[in-house]
């Protein structure tokens, strides 16, 4: 529900902000299947899509929903689906097909506790699935992790632009806390990234005036798939070089650097501010792109010769931790604190871990 305030400021849940951000980014096709804690998102789209001449479909399953997104993307629309962890597991085959057919699409995962049915509390335990090609085959999705309701709104044009630019799936990796939390946000004017229009000469429109277009991920002839996979790998390398994004705080003199993303990064930021007031030299790195992982900021820090202790904090039992270790190439000590399954690391627990 949108509650209008003064100017263009509105109070929204993260789920609704993602939906409205997608609409502003030109998303005109949404298909999804209900699952908590992301239900506000499809409900918002059900009302909003018809207002902007878009299409909303409540699909019969997660499988149908992601394959509808495949079809809408093949037809040239900006298309999106959303779900939460168990539902995202169901979508993995479709995401692999989208990557293999080089289609642009946005997938939102409002993460909850797992494994299995787990529970509906916030978690960050799908990091591996999101960043390591959760489906079959050698592919990657671009993964973006907003940390506030405002950022969840602002980041949507970027997600659609990157998906279109590289013809690849882009995932918004949030969690139940971000999805359910209400915050005042400023709409559209302050959106940091503008929607861009990309030509889609490959789209299925009917073959009038041109040769037929074929959307496929199937390469049976000997050698063809390997050739195609090398093209994909080249694309992923370009994305890794150009699209790393992060936010950092107090890295100039930090002796301890906290690393956290999404909801967890907000708690980490509060810890950093608290300890700074006490004169402790603590900093923060908040990856915004989880794939490509922002290796460059870690490499830059490692090159400075200063001894730094890193503490990775996650609502999981250590998934992004592996990327931080890889980025640092074992040059610095990396510690970890995480909880998952309903518990969220508190400021107190993190400060205790730092002692």
């Amino acid at each position, binding site marked *: 529900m949108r509650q209008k305030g003064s100017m263009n400021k509105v109070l929204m849940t993260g789920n609704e902000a993602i939906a409205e951000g997608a609409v502003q980014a030109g998303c*005109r*096709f949404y*298909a999804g299947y209900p699952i908590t804690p992301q239900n506000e998102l499809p409900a918002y789209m059900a009302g909003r899509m018809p207002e902007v001449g878009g*299409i909303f*479909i409540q*699909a*019969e*399953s997660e*499988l*149908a*929903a992601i*394959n*509808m*997104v*495949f*079809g*809408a993307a*093949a*037809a*040239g*629309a900006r*298309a999106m689906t959303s779900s939460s962890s168990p539902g995202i597991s169901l979508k993995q*085959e*479709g995401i692999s*097909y989208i990557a293999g*057919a080089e289609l642009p699409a946005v997938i939102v995962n409002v993460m909850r506790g797992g494994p299995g049915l787990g529970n509906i509390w916030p978690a960050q335990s799908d990091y591996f699935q999101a960043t390591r090609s959760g489906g079959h085959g050698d592919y990657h999705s671009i993964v973006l992790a907003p940390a506030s309701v405002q950022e969840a709104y602002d980041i949507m044009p970027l997600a659609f632009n990157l998906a279109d630019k590289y013809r690849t799936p882009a995932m918004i990796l949030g969690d139940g806390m971000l999805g359910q939390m209400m915050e005042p946000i400023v709409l559209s004017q302050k959106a940091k990234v503008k929607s861009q229009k990309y030509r889609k000469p490959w789209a*299925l*429109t*009917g*073959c*009038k*005036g041109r040769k*037929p*277009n*074929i*959307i*496929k*991920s*199937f390469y*049976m002839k000997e050698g063809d798939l390997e050739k195609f996979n090398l093209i994909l790998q080249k694309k992923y390398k370009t994305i890794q070089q150009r699209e790393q994004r992060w936010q950092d705080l107090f890295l100039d003199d930090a002796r301890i650097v906290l690393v956290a993303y999404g909801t967890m990064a907000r708690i980490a930021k509060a810890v950093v501010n608290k300890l700074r007031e006490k004169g402790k030299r603590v900093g923060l790195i908040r990856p915004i792109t989880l794939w490509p992982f922002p290796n460059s900021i870690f490499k830059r820090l490692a090159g400075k010769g200063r001894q730094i202790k890193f503490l990775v904090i996650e609502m999981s039992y250590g998934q992004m931790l592996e990327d931080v270790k890889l980025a640092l190439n074992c040059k610095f000590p990396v510690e970890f604190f995480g909880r998952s399954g309903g518990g969220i690391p508190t400021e107190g627990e993190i400060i205790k871990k730092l002692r």
Partner: protein
Amino acid sequence: MNLKKIYSRPQSLRNVATHYCPGCGHGTVHRIIAEVVDELGIRERVIGIAPVGCAVIAYDYWDFDCSEAAHGRALAVATAIKRVRPENIVFTYQGDGDLAAIGTNETIHTANRGENLTAIFINNAIYGMTGGQMAPTTLLGQKTATTPKGRDAKLQGWPLKISEMLTQLPGVKYIERTSLHSPQEIIKSKKAIKQAFVNQIEESGFSLVEILSPCPTYWGVSAKDALGWIKDVMTKEFPLGRIK
């Protein structure tokens, strides 16, 4: 002598060699779809969805826009394409495993939404591409790679009549079951396919044509005997004609 050309390759069919087995029905149905597309003058706005199964590379034969779909999801892909581009004519081409086993959910719900689509359903009572396993439409007693003693209702249930099931749904406009076992039946199949496309052009709802099609390779019979088996055995379980 004044020669008149009365039969040639449709514009919508590419001039390429077939990968199908001798006596297979897919090539025939590919061709009559291409003929219908040409006759209705819709080649430049038709979009075909190929299945996973023997017809996975149907887009290598048709000369118009096509998409692949994951196994069983052709109607989900088609739903979205048609909703995004209602001016295009969108059809799926699916086998019995694709449409009536792994994709049953999509089949029922696409039909139930009354999507303005055309589904061409090839029923050959077997999984061809994977080596002749039991299909949902395999007949009782029929031997396959996974029913070596013949399909037993106690163990594997009965042949699934998905076309009859779909008649219950208000969103379904038209269902007809045809066969490829004789030239007359092929002509009827083409007529039914044409009707299913015309229905979409007239925006009247979901249409499905089920076509009984020979698979001599995995039925373990000659091409000629395969046609006889359709006529004498298969049509008893799957009666031909208008179903809705």
